[in-house]
């Protein structure tokens, strides 16, 4: 592999990593920080992609407006969802959430099939992001991918700031460890968690909307990303946003170079990485000091 190709491959790896991070960010919030084992995360992602598919004709060039509207819709949806299905699960064995979210996946898939059908769809990126930049003599790189990467970083930074630097973030984390005590301090945990859950759903949907023009929109698309997202969150150290970013980039590199050098067994790469990291550091890469 010559140097130029290597450089491009590195770029690919970073870009894929960032995309993974984007998709995993909502999971970091719901699973990593609130502590809900949410198998339906992939469905929220799919919801976002289908939102992009159905909203983009309405909004045309106003892509960012569409993102905002879609995110708000998803947040509202998440708020109701929490109220209906999760609010009474916190006191119970965490594994009940597994069952609940799994059932949600089934329902989502079926509703999607009933509402939008089973066809594969494409979503066009907005005109102003549709171009490409040249990369070496043969290749070009879509501007949209660069946009998506930038969005990932922005969202990641905002999320990190919210979780680690604001009182809201502290309350969320506190709630994950001791709900009763949080209430005793005068913080309405029920509403807080409902809102945060909505935020997690919104993030997942936002990721789906941003990814839609790159990945196309198809049935079962959520299931495919789900496991990788969990891998990212866990390798990074549950609840750590910088950890998730590093993990996502690592996965990006392992996946990219695994495909190039060990095509036969490239499927194993990511899991080997996870196993090695967790056996080496049983609490992930960036587990908080406390």
């Amino acid at each position, binding site marked *: 592999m010559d140097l130029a190709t290597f450089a491009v491959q590195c770029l690919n790896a970073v870009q894929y990593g960032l995309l993974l991070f984007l998709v995993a960010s909502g999971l970091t919030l719901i699973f990593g920080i609130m502590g809900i084992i949410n198998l339906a995360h992939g469905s929220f992602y799919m919801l976002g992609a289908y939102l992009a598919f159905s909203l983009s004709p309405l909004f045309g060039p106003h892509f960012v407006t569409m993102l905002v509207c879609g995110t708000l819709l998803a947040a509202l949806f998440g708020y109701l969802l929490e109220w209906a299905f999760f609010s009474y699960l916190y006191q119970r064995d965490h594994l009940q959430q597994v069952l609940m979210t799994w059932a949600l996946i089934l329902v989502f898939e079926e509703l999607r099939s009933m509402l939008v059908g089973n066809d594969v769809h494409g979503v066009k990126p907005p005109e102003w992001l549709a171009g490409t930049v040249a990369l070496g003599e043969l290749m070009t790189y879509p501007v949209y991918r660069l946009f998506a990467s930038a969005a990932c970083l922005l969202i990641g930074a905002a999320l990190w700031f919210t979780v680690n630097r604001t009182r809201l973030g502290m309350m969320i*984390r*506190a709630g994950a460890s*001791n709900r*009763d005590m949080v209430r005793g301090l*005068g*913080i309405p945990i029920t509403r807080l968690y409902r809102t945060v859950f909505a935020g997690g759903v919104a993030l997942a949907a936002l990721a789906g909307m941003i990814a839609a023009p790159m990945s196309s929109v198809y049935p079962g698309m959520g299931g495919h990303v789900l496991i990788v997202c969990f891998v990212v969150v866990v390798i990074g150290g549950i609840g750590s946003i910088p950890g998730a970013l590093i993990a996502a980039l690592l996965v990006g590199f392992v996946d990219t170079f695994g495909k190039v050098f060990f095509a036969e067994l490239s499927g194993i790469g990511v899991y080997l990485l996870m196993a090695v990291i967790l056996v080496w550091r049983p609490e992930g890469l960036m587990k*908080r000091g406390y």
Partner: protein
Amino acid sequence: MLQVEGLNTYLGDSHILRGVDVSLPAGTALGLMGRNGMGKTTLIRSVMGYVKPRAGTVRWQGAECTGQAPERMARRGIGYVPEGRGIFPNLSVRENLVMSARAGVNGQRDWTYERVLETFPRLAERLDHGGQQLSGGEQQMLSIGRALMTNPLLMILDEATEGLAPLVVAEIWRVIALIRDSGISTLIVDRNARQVLAHTDQAVVMEKGRIVLAGPSAQLAEDTEALHQLLGV
């Protein structure tokens, strides 16, 4: 300020509180005493709204608020230091304090981050430690500090001196006196009956879910016989 009448509380099937009456005027300190398992914590948790009483009323500043959610009670000005401390292990000391900071019901901000650290200098040295990593006593200080950060009108301290070094305990009693002087009421549960009586205006003794002795603390302190019988001191 706080008035509890005829409170009956069940935990599971067991009848724990059997008609408890307690009242706490503003700006005073009330000591709550009793042997282990007599229902002190249950009384506090019923007042805070963690458990719903079956019968009886809880009045706070004249308004009935029986069985209201703990967050409502806290918002109305009750600061709660639970037994077992309830520190958030995954938050640093600073975050434990900052997250709970709030102006009081009347907008008072007597207790600030700085003042809490001044009161517990040990915490200032441990700001970036996680709650999990603190020693038992440090956790206790943090728990008290955290409750103070909500600028309450009433502090409920359930075994707040547990695990604290004698010097710190003395400091806590000083703080309680201070709080009382600034017009904040306190409800104190503590194993050290002598200290409780020395630092409160009124005191009650519980036995098997009932109040069996009540009166001004100074007066109770005299009654060694009753104290010995009820508390074993």
